[in-house]
């Protein structure tokens, strides 16, 4: 369908903060130092109870993310999806991805116009 909106579904419960998505994106798009197509944000670490810690990472696509339009046209997955070491990023139609948001610590991004 022409008007289908695509997005990235991220299960950030298991994002380890490895910077693979950021690096893969920079290499794919040739972004210079200081420019990012996806950026990792750190949540915590904060102690939220006795012996209980909250520490997560959250990758966030920027305005430069084009969901790897060229790669997708070739039949590849977006590079962050392909290379994510924790395998927590999925690409697809937003409605399909939304239906999979059935647990804690998930986020759905719709970066492109």
């Amino acid at each position, binding site marked *: 369908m022409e008007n289908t909106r695509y997005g990235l579904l991220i299960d950030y419960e*298991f994002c*380890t*903060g*490895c*910077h*693979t998505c*950021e*690096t*893969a994106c*920079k*290499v794919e798009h040739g972004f210079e*130092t*200081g420019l990012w197509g996806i950026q990792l944000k750190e949540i*915590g*670490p*904060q*102690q939220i109870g006795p*012996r209980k*810690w*909250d*520490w997560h*990472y959250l990758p966030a696509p920027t305005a430069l993310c084009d969901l790897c339009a060229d790669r997708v046209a*070739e*039949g*590849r*997955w977006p590079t962050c*999806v*392909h*290379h*994510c*070491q*924790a*395998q927590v990023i*999925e690409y697809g139609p937003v409605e399909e991805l939304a239906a999979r948001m059935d647990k804690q610590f998930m986020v759905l991004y719709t970066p492109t116009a």
Partner: protein
Amino acid sequence: MPRCPRPINEELYRDEWIWQEGEYTVYRNCQYTAPGCHNGCGVLHYVKDNKLVKIEGDPKGALSNGRLCMRCLAMEEMVNHPFRIYNPMKRDPAKRGDDDAWEVITWDEAYDLYVEKAEEILGKYGKKSFCILGGTGRNTTWQFAALATTVMGSPNYTFGFLSGNSCYVPRMNVCFWMGGDVMVADCAQCVEEGYDHPDYVNPEVCVIWCCNPIVSNADGFFGHWIVDLMRMGTKLIVIDPRLTWMGAQAEYYLQIKPGTDGALALGWINVIIAEDLYDHDFVEKWTYGFDQLAARAAEYPPERVAEITGIPADLIVASARRYATAKPASVQWGLKFDQFKNGFGAAMGCAALWALTGNIDVPGGNIVVNTGFISGDARRMFSGMKNTAGEEFDMTERLGQDEFVVEQMGLEPQAHPDSLLKALETGEPYPIKFLFEQSSNFLANMGADPQRLLAAVRTVDFFVVTDYYMTPTAAACADLFLPIAMSIERTGCRSMFNPTRAISPVVTTNAHTDEDIVLDIGHRLNPEGTPWANATEFWEDVLHNIRDQAGKPYYPPDFTFDDLREKMYIWEPFEYRKYEKGLLRSDGQPGFSTPTGRFEFYSLTAEAAGGDPLPHYVPEPNKTADPEAFEEYPLYLTTGRRSWEFFHSEHRHLKSMREFHPWPRVEMTQETADKYGIQEGDWVLIENPRGSVREKCVINPSMHPDTIMAEHGWWYPERRDDISGDNPFGVFDSNINQLVPMEDYGPLGYCAPYDTQMCRISKCTDYHPTYDPGY
């Protein structure tokens, strides 16, 4: 759970090893060094006009299945980097440290010089005055042994000043002595079907001990397998002085004082035996020395262990129960067992836990691995060959033989790194006059007390460094620099452990592989001892010498490198519960390959070597034991934790990596920083009686306030205009190993205190480097 979670486009990601895709030739390959790393992940190299244009993870690749870390993703920048050196260079030994004294030469001239110097030194001092140094992570696990023994006729090859052989060697020997083979946490990595293998079971609990595997990926273990396990339901217990991301996700996080892991292991054993949580059936049928183990562990009640380790007693008890009652449960252990003086006893305690709970060689437990030992089998092959004069080869003359029982017993294949330093400094037991370094950069990394090393190494008559760029070690010490080929220029294999993977060259440069260098030297100096025409033949011979436990070769004599490349991955047979099936011992009987045939809680090998046969704990110097000595140096210093961006001393010259990680980091709590008037981002002077370095403060709220963590391996490749003299590339500004001693190893010569130094810190106000990548 499938290893690759999404559909694979079969047209783009193929089963062949090579194909054409538009303007690119695509090679399905294994990425294995240089640059270094231990994994050997599956990659696709896209090549045009003899140049690597891009790299992509191979979704059909074994082990990592298309995933890549940031260092592999930056491979194009790495292999095409302007700082690379492609031509040999020589320098007058009188001008070591003078960067203007290098002269570019051809390979033939380099080899002529090598032969001339080697023959001169051979005539004066004999063959054993040659020593070949190795490193870690690069594809040179046996090549340095071949150069030393078959080509140069010397028994001396060793790690480049890694004190106490303190990286995996101690833990491997714990495994060999107690259980007969290496053991590792099972993540279905040894079976082709992965998590879908019918026998595989996901562990209920995985203990992460002395490591942060998602960053370190050590010993052929892809750390994100643990994340796979977590997603399939595995719960974690994490034991670490510093909270990691994994620790934050764990059911139990145990913040341990550095160097006290032996006491914790015995404390867990105590709880498990006292509460009758151990596996009676396995212990009775398959182990030796249970009563002695129980008696030793009885000395470590939870309250005592709490006092030693700083972990609350109730947490020790609860976590021990959780590990013992989970079925199955595994432990993924790490480097830090090797890096305090009594780590060997702690590692024995850790291994004893696997057997005590019946988790040895069961699916989802700690599996016995007796496949994939290219390095071990190849070193045996070369050590058995004749020397240059055609005489039988005598390894008993190697450095360390007269000092260490483990060397005399033949338990150690290589010379001892600390004995090499002693020989360089004193000429005892005999002088070392010729050094050749492969894949290490000991002034920046691995070697302890590097300024002492610099002085010692400069006493030799000739020093050869092989590397792909100028390093502090080469700049300060080398007389001959031989440029080595990087990953995409090499022929080879990786197999630690299953499967064996082919490495094919995809571009040609004037840099040579380590195998080519060994062969070129051998053909000139010792043609009889160098029967291989090229690297492919060399590797084929190595493969033909890989044997199973009965001594039978895995690969038939007509097996060629092309066969391996066609298949890309060859899985050696793997089974669980091998001890029940007679698959571990050379006599084919059930049991383990140990003197008693059982898993030995009480190690007869350790006893014969003069060591403590049981798991043990001996206090390292610490404040509780000796408060006065530490008044001036009140903080525990841990070193060597891994970064995403760097492999040891590599990658500092990549601007992509430095954007993420521009300067060395020392982590401490806010409380500690406040106490010493330091703010996040300040340069910090870290000192002890041995030396001082500068690193930048990062606040980590989860450290213990008594402990700081300082990064290792730092030098500044961007300071290329300032590499003459005694501080090339500013290596001594920040190399934390200046605070770590040589020759202070643990019993038996194993383990060194890289992780248990005391120090003091202050704000550093006179150090303001700026970063300009220089390209």
